[in-house]
């Protein structure tokens, strides 16, 4: 099965709403795209349509949170980061437990093009003191990450995809915040992926295997706090780390990993993703091929990295 993580989020939120009356949801005229509409239909009295005014939505969410509610504030990742100062002051600094939901991550959204692509959100959210930053890779992980956010009494950010993601985790999988997951073992390098690139990285691992390169593949679903212990262990045991994400390489998951590597066990790191570029319109799969975020591209880039001295 494959499902967009935004849809898995919407379904989970509608379920959680039954158990927890404190959950309230806000959207800024994108509920049909963020999938918060699934909650809105079920609990209209706990859903606040804020119109195309994301700053106000974030501020209202902060007020609701400070008054004891559990708000999920939803929009496209790129529009939320545009309201960064409100997130910084009214949510983070005010210690208001707002759950921020940024959908339409990366070039994976395809045809709508750069203006709708969240490509800098991880960098910005990561820079806010105390912000938990999550990016699940499949339906099950999304479900559990959203449940964690609802239960956690603090502010957090989750990054979700427009496109479908194949199932990666087995039914007995248990999401643990801040703990990376080793999906395949290997000794020649570690490929660390997050969200949409996890499935591609796993496939890339198989391609590399055929070339005699044994890649360890790790799912970094929590970008902050980064799993420093696991990063250090991978650095030590595989000697090289290749990170891949559908995000600018500046400040994203790769940066978080590189920082951890430098501070624990310095080894060569290659960050792969959008190379300090904006996105563009196109078929999502064609874009992943063009920007080498698909399995073939990742395998190519990772192989070149391993062969470097």
């Amino acid at each position, binding site marked *: 099965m494959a499902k967009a993580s935004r849809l898995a989020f919407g379904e989970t939120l509608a379920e959680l709403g039954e158990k927890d009356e404190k959950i*309230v949801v806000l959207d800024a005229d994108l509920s049909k795209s963020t999938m918060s509409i699934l909650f809105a239909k079920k609990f209209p*009295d*706990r859903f*606040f349509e*804020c*119109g195309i*005014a994301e*700053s*106000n939505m*974030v*501020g*209202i*969410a*902060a*007020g*609701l*949170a*400070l*008054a*004891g*509610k559990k*708000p999920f504030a939803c929009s496209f990742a790129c529009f939320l980061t545009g309201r960064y*100062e*409100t997130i*910084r*002051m*009214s949510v983070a*600094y*005010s*210690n*208001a437990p707002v759950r921020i939901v940024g959908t339409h991550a990366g070039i994976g959204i395809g045809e709508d093009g750069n203006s709708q692509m969240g490509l800098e959100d991880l960098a910005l959210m990561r820079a806010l003191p105390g912000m938990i930053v999550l990016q699940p890779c499949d339906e099950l992980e999304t479900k559990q990450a959203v449940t964690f956010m609802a239960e956690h009494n603090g502010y957090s950010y989750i990054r979700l995809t427009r496109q479908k993601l194949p199932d990666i985790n087995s039914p007995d999988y248990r999401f643990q915040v801040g703990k990376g997951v080793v999906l395949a073992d290997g000794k020649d390098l570690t490929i660390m992926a997050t969200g949409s690139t996890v499935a591609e990285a796993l496939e890339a691992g198989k391609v590399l295997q055929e070339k005699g390169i044994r890649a360890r593949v790790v799912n970094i679903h929590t970008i902050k706090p980064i799993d420093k212990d696991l990063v250090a262990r991978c650095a030590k045991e595989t000697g090289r780390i290749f990170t891949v994400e559908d995000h600018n390489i500046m400040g994203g998951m790769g940066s978080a990993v590189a920082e951890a590597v430098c501070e624990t066990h310095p080894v060569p790191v290659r960050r792969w993703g959008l190379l300090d570029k904006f996105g563009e319109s196109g078929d999502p799969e064609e874009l992943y091929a063009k920007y080498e975020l698909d399995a073939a591209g990742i395998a190519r880039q990772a192989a070149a990295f391993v062969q470097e001295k």
Partner: protein
Amino acid sequence: MPEIAELKEIAGKIRIDVIRMLAEAGSGHPGGSLSAADLVTALLFAVMRHNPKRHDWPHRDRFILSKGHAIPVWYAALAEAGYFPREDLLTLRKTGSPLQGHPDRNRMPCLEACTGSLGQGLSVALGMALASKMGGSPFRVYCLMGDGETQEGQVWEAAMASPKFKADTLCAILDYNKAQIDGYVKDVMPLEPIKDKWVSFGWHVIPINGHDFEQILGALKEAAETKNQPTLILADTVKGKGVSFMENVVDWHGKAPNAEEAAKALAELGAN
């Protein structure tokens, strides 16, 4: 409810504390603190339901100081009400003090939000007002805004949303003192016709003299009785009110009085 004479006396004490605090700190914002002194006095000492011994009482009315730079006036009012010892006021802006230069609820939990980046308070207040209408605890939410800060776009997003949500537990108060850092509001970025703007957005607007306690109390009562729509009290005020050489002088927006100026101001305010 205290007599008006009593409120005037409290407001006088608060103004004196503001001058003392700023002089001791050596920086801060006297103009907008003094213009709001009567408004916050009426709120905290005659209108709001609150408990200085239990700042986290869930049914308390909420106060959001959207114009966060005027926080000295609120600190002075909180100390007068018994939230913390008055001598703490003189730690304003000092390293390690809970009295940060702009409101910080992490260091002072009786503050409802962190503000100081202008234009955000009304949205937060609206969120609290929505929570108050969701049952259980119909507290009221007061949001004090500066005039200059309503140049921020987010204010108008909140201005549009509050009537949509029929946020009648929300009362915004605009401290219309007509000056901001770079000059007079009318020159920096004109706001008039202010009343018409808020009325057209769907607010119940009550224009008053923001230094007349009868009018302030009357407007706050009218706001509480107004149903199905939010209220904006448009308070005509004087920047630097109470200190002759600060009144309506733009430069006193954001500079502290030196020792000599402070002594002169305190004498005018009748400090012992």
